[in-house]
């Protein structure tokens, strides 16, 4: 992976939209912005497999679809396995001369629950079998589509509908599962974290992950106004604060080598984070 694959910047992004307007995401959603940017980075020659979740539900209510690229949804827990079949199927059909030789990128997309909880077995299997595919995890830190239930990606101290803060509880009492590190443990060639508040960084990483031969994993921090109870004009700001405070560092792991992409000499203090991510006011951030 050379610098050549880094190509996005001002005026260098296609004006073409692969995710059509008119979807039903919430106002100010950070996730759909990230999906839109990822699609621009990937271009037309992709097949997208989507796990059940906000993205699937908000883009595909029959009889309409937002997708201008081939797209498939089967279930919640199996997107990495479905993507495995797409990748292996295309490869053998090309080898047998039944599909013309062409570079079609197979991309799996899912939320944090679909990745770190119910889908982790299928994901681990697909990594281990070395399928040539890109997995994008859009992490809004809880099961937002079903109504803000806790997942293993929910941060410590957050209040969700199934781990609510109360007289006897601070809310989530477990620490966020570190999915990028689990991906690193599979020795796959490319892992990155990204956030739509840094659009060119996100697009470069998605492009790189798509270009790499073998499995690639990009974990995308996706602010959720509905679940985090923040104002709908704050997604970009909160994403930036998460990175600048070190809550969600942006980094890449290429063939085992780590690189911090946004490296501030001094992290911003946690108390600069607004009272967001499903977290009770009582906790504030000085709790940390």
């Amino acid at each position, binding site marked *: 992976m050379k610098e050549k694959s880094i190509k996005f910047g001002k005026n260098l992004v296609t004006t073409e939209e692969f995710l059509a307007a008119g979807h039903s995401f919430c106002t100010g959603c950070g996730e759909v912005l990230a999906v839109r940017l990822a699609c621009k980075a990937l271009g*037309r*020659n*992709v*097949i997208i*497999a989507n796990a059940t979740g906000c993205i*699937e*539900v908000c883009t*595909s*209510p*029959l*009889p309409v*679809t937002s*997708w*201008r*690229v*081939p*797209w*498939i*949804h*089967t*279930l919640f*827990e*199996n997107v*990495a*396995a*479905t*993507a*495995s*079949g*797409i*990748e*292996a*199927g*295309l*490869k*053998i*059909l090309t*080898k*047998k001369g*039944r*599909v013309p030789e062409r570079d*079609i990128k197979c991309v799996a997309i899912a939320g944090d629950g679909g990745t770190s909880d119910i889908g982790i*077995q*299928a994901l*681990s*299997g697909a990594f*281990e*079998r070395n399928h040539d595919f890109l997995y994008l995890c859009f992490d809004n830190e809880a099961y937002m589509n079903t109504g803000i239930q806790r997942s293993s990606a929910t941060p410590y101290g957050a209040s969700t509908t199934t781990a609510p803060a109360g007289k006897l509880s601070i809310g989530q009492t477990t620490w966020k599962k570190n999915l990028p590190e689990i991906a690193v443990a599979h020795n796959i060639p490319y892992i990155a974290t990204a956030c739509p508040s840094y659009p060119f960084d996100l697009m470069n990483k998605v492009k790189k992950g798509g270009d790499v031969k073998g499995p690639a994993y990009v974990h995308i921090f996706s602010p959720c106004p509905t679940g985090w109870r923040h104002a709908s004009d704050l997604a970009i700001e909160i994403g930036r604060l998460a990175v600048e405070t070190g809550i969600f560092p942006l980094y890449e792991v290429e063939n085992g080598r780590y690189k911090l992409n946004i490296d501030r000499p001094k992290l911003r203090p946690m108390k600069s984070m607004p009272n967001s991510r499903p977290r009770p006011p009582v906790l504030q951030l000085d709790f940390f």
Partner: protein
Amino acid sequence: MSKRVGLEASHAAAEAARMADVDVIAAYPITPQTHIPERLAEMVADGELNAAYIPVDSEHSAMSTCLGAAAVGARTFTATAGPGLEYMHNVLYVASSMRLPVVMTVANRALSAPLSIWGDHSDAMGSRDTGWIQIFCQNSQEAFDMTLCAFRVGEDPGVLLPVMVHFDGFHLTHVTEPVILPEQEEVDRFLPKFHYPFALDPDKPMSLGAFAPPDIYPEAKIAQEMALRKSKTVIIQEFQQFGDIFGRYYQPVELYGMQSAKTLLLTMGSFSETAKIAIDTKKNNGESVGLINLRLWRPFPSKELFQAIKSTEVLVVFDRCISFGGPGGPVSSEVRSTLYNEKEKPKVVNFIGGLGGRDMSVEDFEYVIDRGREIAEKGSDELFETVGIRGEVTGTRG
């Protein structure tokens, strides 16, 4: 020239998948299915089969991988058994609802607990409402033949449905029998290349597997149901076509013995062959008996079944599965339901046996026929009786 070789049903099914030139195999090992993926993996490793063999992490991933492969237009095969079939249960509905014609061998196995690796039909019956075509085999030859037919039927542009080919764990999977293998040219004549009309392709972007609000969902499901029902015509037509090429003719419902027999026994799978010996013995004793081998389980061949049994006096239905708390075994329930509105119909008697690999002998089937006739004559409060099971068993209507 076709050749006659000794093969266990597992290897016969693998051979059929090879001759069908499958593109993708995704499978997870489970007894007693293992010989099927093992043989296919060997074929791929030796270059006898040009396919992607994907050793997935579970049965759930096996079927999910098959969905992805079928959605790009690959001919896709997998195999499983008992608990493995249950583990992929959720995905089975998606395969049929998305009209992805995956072919799967099910080496029928009992379900836990207690754990049993041996055969019965609990797994097949648990899948009866998943929208798959389900075909049962009696022997290794049929394991080969039905696997080829499964590809032909499932991939028919008017069908596009996944197909399960059932054969009994151990009783067939691990038993070597003579099998006639055809020439590749004959197989190619029967089975054209797979062309999936809705393949995922960047040049023709389509959204597959979208979600349906209540104003669309019911129509989608009824359309699926109609497609499965209509597939029976194609199945019958392709069985005929298969017979014309290979010389072996099959039917959804097969009668052994006299059409006018006063007592008919109905069985499925490998036990049908054992039951045939019991029928022969009884016929030699001058009794008016015959056997119905129910080959096609889904779509349920109501019309054909009624034609075959309408003039008999007693129909003894043998189930290898308990429908817990239900009105008898699953096969007998459906047979009784088929007959309920008919004016002229036989008395139906139900036996449950052969669970978790418990064998059924020729004598057991003779007993089933005798006892069945007795029950039909005297009447009984029991919905079913068991055979070969120790202890007191009641299946009362109460």
